[in-house]
Each structure stands twice: as C-alpha cells, then as structure tokens.
C-alpha cells in the first residue's frame, strides 16, 4: 500500500472513530459501540505502525520517526492539492 492509499484508509478509519466517540458520548453504556470502538482503535494502531515503518510522513508532531531529520514541517500541508 502506498503512503497515499494508507492516508486515505487512515482518514476513513479516523472518521469512523470520531462518529463512534460521539455516539459513546451520548450512549456510554452501549457495549456494542464500545466493542466497535476498540476494533477501530486496533485497526488504526496497526495502520499507523505500518505507515511509520514504511517511512510515510508523520501525522502528529509526536510521530517523527527519523532520528536524523525533522520531517514534521515538510510539505505538503493538508490544504495543498498534492496532499489530497
């Protein structure tokens, strides 16, 4: 999977997570939603690990994996067409 494809997949998973979080905020006792939340978090974790291993650009400032280069500020930024 290319970094571009992985980023697309991450956007999809993160969107699902946001929706699940909002649902749980309103229905905190819904066990089904909580299980779904954990499944999504697990999938996100695995995807982020593979993105970091593949040398894709960091998504958070705390995920700059390189010990020799500061890549966090590298372009493109999310509003630039090349990032989409």
């Amino acid at each position: 999977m290319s970094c571009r494809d992985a980023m697309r997949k991450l956007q999809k998973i993160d969107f699902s997570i946001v929706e699940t979080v909002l649902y749980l905020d309103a229905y905190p006792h819904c066990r089904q939603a909580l299980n779904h939340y954990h499944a999504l978090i697990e999938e996100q974790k695995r995807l982020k690990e593979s993105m970091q291993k593949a040398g894709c650009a960091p998504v958070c400032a705390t995920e700059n994996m390189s010990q020799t280069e500061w890549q966090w500020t590298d372009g493109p930024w999310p509003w630039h067409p090349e990032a989409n």
Partner: protein
Amino acid sequence: MWIYEKKLQFPVKIKNPNPRLASAIISQLGGPDGEMGASMRYLHQRYSCPYDKVTGILTDVGTEELAHLEMVAAILYQLTRNLTPEEIENSPFAAYFVDHTTGVYPVAASGVPFDMKYVGVKGDILTDLNEDLAADAAIP
C-alpha cells in the same frame, strides 16, 4: 488541550479555481452560520456545563468543527490559486481581494469579519443547548 493531526478529515481536491464561488463559500468559514461560529460556540459552552457527558459532546463536536473549519479553508485556498487579475476584478471576489489578496480570512460573504456576536454562551446548560438547536437549524 489540542493535538493537531496533519490531514484533512475528508480530502479536498478542487479541479478549477473559481473566485466567484469562493466569495460565497467564505461564509461557511466566517459567516454567522459558519464553522468559526460552530467551533467557538461548542468549545466555549462546555466550561460552565454541569454534566460530564454533555461536556464530552461539546468538546468532541467543537473539536470536529475545527476540522471542518480547516476543510472549508482548504476549499477556499484551492479555489483561489493562480488567478489572473481579470478573473479577480470581474468577480465578487474583488472586494475581498482588496484587503486579503488570496489569504484565507474568516469573513462573511457580505464582508463582515467573523464576530462572536453570532454565538450565545449564557452559562446555563439548557439555554446553551437551545442555542445549539437553533444554530444547527434543528428547530424548524
């Protein structure tokens, strides 16, 4: 506090610049019913909220609105790249251009800059939630 993730919540890829469209869409950024208002409304109402779960919703929705703010800004950024002087002068975007060139500035289509007057924060959760219903156009 906030962590920033370097990705849009949903991709934005505009094929053709369009300053006329930008001069209308700008209201979704800085107008009375835009994302600046939405994010500032929810994020400020949460401080006086007496119920943890409601505070959770206000926090999480407010944060998501900031992500929407970013997407609308991305749309405006892409709509206003590589414009010729004629394209600018012959569109309603000309007025905005005078003060902001092709920067992205929260303002309404009318030219009024974003104003917290669009937002109600009254310190009473029922009042504030009613403000939210009205703002979301959930009250018919």
